[in-house]
């Protein structure tokens, strides 16, 4: 396991914060040097970035057909006034 600027374990620990840009400039620079020389950590980074892209796509969860209409129908059955608490 190579130690390039920082160790692979330290890189994995921060990969999520790296993607969220939630790390210091210094740490980002050190991680980028590491990625430049470590194919394994680059693979983990690319895979994690792909996961974030896939789950955040916006079309991942398809609502069941007719969901909107059934919800609208439920709302129409509500009493006209919001209850006062």
């Amino acid at each position: 396991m190579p130690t390039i600027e920082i160790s692979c374990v330290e890189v994995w620990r921060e990969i999520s914060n790296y993607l969220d840009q939630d790390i210091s400039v210094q740490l980002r620079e050190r991680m980028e040097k590491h990625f430049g020389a470590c194919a394994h950590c680059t693979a983990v980074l690319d895979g994690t970035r792909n996961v974030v892209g896939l789950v955040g796509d916006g079309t991942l969860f398809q609502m069941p057909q007719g969901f909107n209409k059934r919800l609208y129908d439920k709302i129409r059955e509500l009493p006209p006034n919001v209850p006062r608490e």
Partner: protein
Amino acid sequence: MSAIQSQSRAYEAQIIKRVCEGEREAFYELVRPYERMVYATAISIVKNPADAEEVAQEAVLKAFSKLSTFRGESKFSTWLVQITYNEAKMKLRKTHANLYESIDDSQQAEDGEFWPKDYADWRPIPSELLEENEIRQAVQDAISSLSANYREVLILRDVQRLSIKETTTILGISEGSVKTRLHRARLLLRDSLAPGIDGCWIKGQPYRKVRPW
């Protein structure tokens, strides 16, 4: 808060006022932009479409009945997702499905280092791949296989794109826990999706791995 965000908050406040004054139909206008968000939150917890729809409907109806208590301290969407989250948890308790969750949770400790299982070298994945049902299903299954702690944070942060602060409000956990759980969830998901479908995410191309040291 940006100008667009404050405009949107002001617009929502106007609709809420109209609903509270008896214009019930306007409630659908208020909820409509967040339907998918409500459904995704529900299904991430109850895991099946029929229960998720029931939870989503119950959450929306509850939001109506509690609307006079909404003070605008958080965004309406955060408040609605929090109600959905609570409704979904209640549904789980009723069906005892959380019995299995708690066993699962204990097997995935949050502390300790995470070691990737696999070093597959992914190529960039075009989002059009999600149009293929089998890939969408694989991603959904991988999310379902996460324990509740990780799944909930992943759904709120990466699917719903809520901020860390909004996520802490909804789940009632610390910022540190949100970050740790999200990190673990993403890496677990990467491990389970790394081999792709039939060994490769892009059809017709050989699956390449960066293999061990």
